[in-house]
C-alpha cells in the first residue's frame, strides 16, 4: 500500500500530496490509539505525545540549528516515548473512562504550560525550520515530495513493527486484558507492565506523528495538545476500527479528505458533516472502515 502511494506521488496534484502527508503523519498517532483500544483503553489525551513530538522537533531545530529530517523525527519519537515511560507508571493503573480522563487532564496541563510560555510564542506557537535530508535541501514541490516520502517511509516501518508487535505476547495480550485481567495475571503476566508498554508504544507513535506533522506543517502551537485535537484522533480511530494496521492510515486519509471537502463545499457546516460521518460510522460500521477492508480481503481470498 505504502509503496503504491509512494509511486503514485509524482502524479498527484501538490495539494493532494500535502494533504496525504499530514493525513499519514496523523495516521501514526491513530495507530497508537489502536494499540490501546485493542486492550479496551481509550486516551483522550493522545495529543500530549503528538505535541511533545512536534515541539521536540521544532525546538531542536530552533536551538541547535540542526535540521536533518530523519534525525529530527527520531528525536520526536524518543522524546514522546520517554514522557510516556514516566506517565505510564501512573496511567497503567487506570481503566475505562478513568484512563481517558486522566490522560485528558495530563495533556491539558501541557497545553497550559505551553500557553504560559511566552518565549515560545504562547498560543501563536512558532515556525519550524525547513528540514534537510542528509544535506539535501529541497524546496517547494521537491520539499513536499521529500516530506511525503519521508512520512510514507516512517509509516511503513512503523506499520511493519506494529504488525510484529501485535503478533508478540505483549501485543496479543490486548483482547485477553479487555476480557479477563485476572486470568492474565494467573498465567504469570503483569497486566500493569503490559499496559505500560502499550502506553509507551502509543506514545512513541504519537511522537513520531507529531514530529512528521511539525515538519509538514512548518509550524507548531499549543493547540496540538488541546483536548479537541485528541478528540479528532479518537474520532479517526473509531472511523478506522481496531481491525488492521492499514485501517489507521486509510481512516486518517478519509478523515482529512472529508474535513477538507466539507471546508471546501460548506465552510459553515463542516462540523456537522464530520459529526454525521462519525455517527453513521458507529451506527452502520461498528468495526470501522477496517472491517470493510477485511471483508474485501476475505472475499478476495475466497475467490483465489
Amino acid at each position: 500500500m505504502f509503496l503504491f502511494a509512494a509511486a503514485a506521488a509524482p502524479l498527484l496534484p501538490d495539494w493532494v500530496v500535502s494533504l496525504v502527508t499530514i493525513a499519514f503523519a496523523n495516521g501514526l498517532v491513530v495507530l497508537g490509539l489502536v494499540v490501546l483500544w485493542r486492550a479496551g483503553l481509550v486516551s483522550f489525551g493522545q495529543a500530549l505525545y503528538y505535541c511533545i513530538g512536534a515541539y521536540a522537533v521544532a525546538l531542536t531545530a530552533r536551538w541547535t540549528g540542526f535540521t536533518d529530517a530523519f534525525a529530527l523525527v527520531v528525536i520526536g519519537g524518543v522524546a514522546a516515548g520517554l514522557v510516556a515511560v514516566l506517565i505510564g507508571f501512573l496511567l497503567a493503573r487506570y481503566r475505562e473512562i478513568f484512563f481517558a480522563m486522566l490522560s485528558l487532564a495530563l495533556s491539558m496541563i501541557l497545553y497550559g504550560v505551553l500557553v504560559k510560555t511566552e518565549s515560545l510564542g504562547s498560543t501563536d506557537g512558532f515556525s519550524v525550520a525547513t528540514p534537510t535530508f542528509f544535506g539535501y535541501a529541497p524546496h517547494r514541490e521537491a520539499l513536499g515530495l521529500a516530506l511525503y516520502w519521508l512520512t510514507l517511509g516512517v509509516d511503513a516501518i512503523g506499520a511493519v513493527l506494529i504488525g510484529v508487535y501485535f503478533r508478540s505476547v505483549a501485543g496479543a495480550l490486548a483482547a485477553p486484558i479487555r476480557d479477563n485481567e485476572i486470568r492474565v495475571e494467573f498465567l504469570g503476566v503483569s497486566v500493569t507492565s503490559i499496559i505500560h508498554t502499550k502506553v509507551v508504544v502509543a506514545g512513541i507513535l504519537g511522537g513520531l506523528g507529531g514530529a512528521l506533522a511539525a515538519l509538514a506543517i512548518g509550524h507548531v502551537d499549543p493547540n496540538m495538545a488541546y483536548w479537541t485535537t485528541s478528540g479528532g484522533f479518537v474520532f479517526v480511530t473509531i472511523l478506522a476500527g481496531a481491525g488492521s494496521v492499514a485501517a489507521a492510515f486509510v481512516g486518517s486519509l478519509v478523515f482529512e479528505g472529508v474535513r477538507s471537502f466539507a471546508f471546501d463545499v460548506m465552510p459553515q457546516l463542516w462540523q456537522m458533516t464530520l459529526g454525521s460521518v462519525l455517527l453513521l460510522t458507529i451506527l452502520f460500521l461498528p468495526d470501522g472502515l477496517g472491517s470493510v477492508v477485511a471483508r474485501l480481503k476475505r472475499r478476495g481470498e475466497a475467490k483465489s
Partner: protein
Amino acid sequence: MSHRKTLTRWVLAGLAVTAAAVPAQAQQPPAAAPIKLGIVSFLTGPAASPFGIPGRNGAEIVIEALNTGKAPAPFNTVGFGGTKIEAKYVDETGSAANVVTEFRNLVQRDQVDAVVGYISSGSCLAVTPVAEELKVLTVFYDCGTPRIFEEKPRNYVFRVSPHATMDNVAAARYLLAKKKGVTSYSGINQNYAWGQDSWRDFVGAMKVLAPNVTSDKVLFPKLFAGEYGAEVSTLLTSKSQALHTSFFDGDLEGFVYQEQARGLDKRMTIIMTTGEAAIWRLRDKLADGTIIGGRGANGPLARDTEINRWFQKIYTDRYNLPPTYPAYQMAQSLFGLKLAYEKAAKAGAKPTADEIATAFKGIEFDGPAGHVKMAIGDGHQGITETAYGTYRFNKQKKEPEIVDIVRFPAECVNPPAGIDADKWIAEGMKGAKCN
C-alpha cells in the same frame, strides 16, 4: 464555483489518490479567467461574530463595488485593472495543520491568484512560510503580531493593517494625556499570545512614558473563560485608577456585564484596545468615560473623508450595522492589493506574483481608515495613524459616540523601519515623532 464543478473535482482528487491517474493540469483554469482571491476568516467558532463575519462582509461589499466599478476614485476601475474578481471564502477555524492545508488547497487546488485574510496571529505565523515557499501573494488583514516581518524579511507576504504594537503604545499615551492623576494601573487580558503581547507592550510603553506609575493587579484569565467573578473582586480590592484590557467580543461583553453589576467602572477607568468592535452591541451597557481603541483609526475613530462616508454607507445599507474595524481592515487590504496589482499590470497583461509584490512594496494610499504607508518590514508592513477616544452613549440619539478623540501620527506609535517593536519600546521608543 458551482457544486457540480467542486464535486467532480473531488471525485477526480479521489481517483488521483487511489488510482493516481489525474494530471495536475486538470485543475488549470481556462485563459482570460477572472482574478481569483481566497478570502480566509473565522466563519465558525467564537471569533466569527466579532471579526470573521465583519471581515467577510467587508470583502463581499468591497469586491461587489469593485466588480461594478462603483468604488470612488482612485479605486473606480472595474475589479483589478479591468478584470473581475472571483472570491472564495474559507473558514480559518481549526488547528495550524488545517489552516495550512486549506491555504495550500486554495493555492494549489483552487489556483487562486492571491489570498487575503487571517485573524489569528497563530494562523498568520503558520501560513507565512508556506506562502513564501509557494510564492503566492498573501495579504493578512487582522492578525496583530509584529513577529511576521521581524523574524525574517518576506517577499510575498504583506500586511496593510498596522500591527498591534501601536494599539497599546497609543493607549498608554492617551491614558496619560487624559488622566493626569494616574499613579497605578492594573490589567486583565486573555491568557494567550494576543493578551500577553498587548499587556507587555502597554506596560513597556507606560514604563517609558511615566516611569513612576506602577502596575498593580496583573490578571490573565483563560481565553473564553466566561466567568470573571474572582477577577472583578480582585480588581475591586485594587487601588489602581485605570484598567487595561485587550479582551474582545464574547469575553469583553461578558466582563463588562459582570463588572457593571459590581460597579468596577465607577472605581477605575477601563481602557479597551479593541472596544470599538463592541460599542454597537454594548450600547448603554458600556460605561461613559471608557477609553476606546479600534486597532487603528477605524469606525467612529476614522476621519470623515469621502471614501469613509462611502464605505460606511454601503456597509450599513447592506448589513444594517455600521462597519467595525475588521471590516475596515479588510477593505484597506483589498484596496492596497488592487493598487499594487494595477501598478504592476502593464498593458493589460496579467502580472505575476513577483511583479505585484515589487509594486506593493512601500506603496502609499488613502483608504476608508485613512492614509496607509507600507513603511516598515522592508515595505511589507503598513503603518497608519491611530486614534483613541472616550466613550459616551448619546441618550437623545440613542446611539454610541466616541468623544474627545486624540489622533496619533503613524510615526508616533510605530517603530521606525528596521527596529523590532519590543526592542523599540524597551529602548524608550526612540525616534517617535508625535507633535
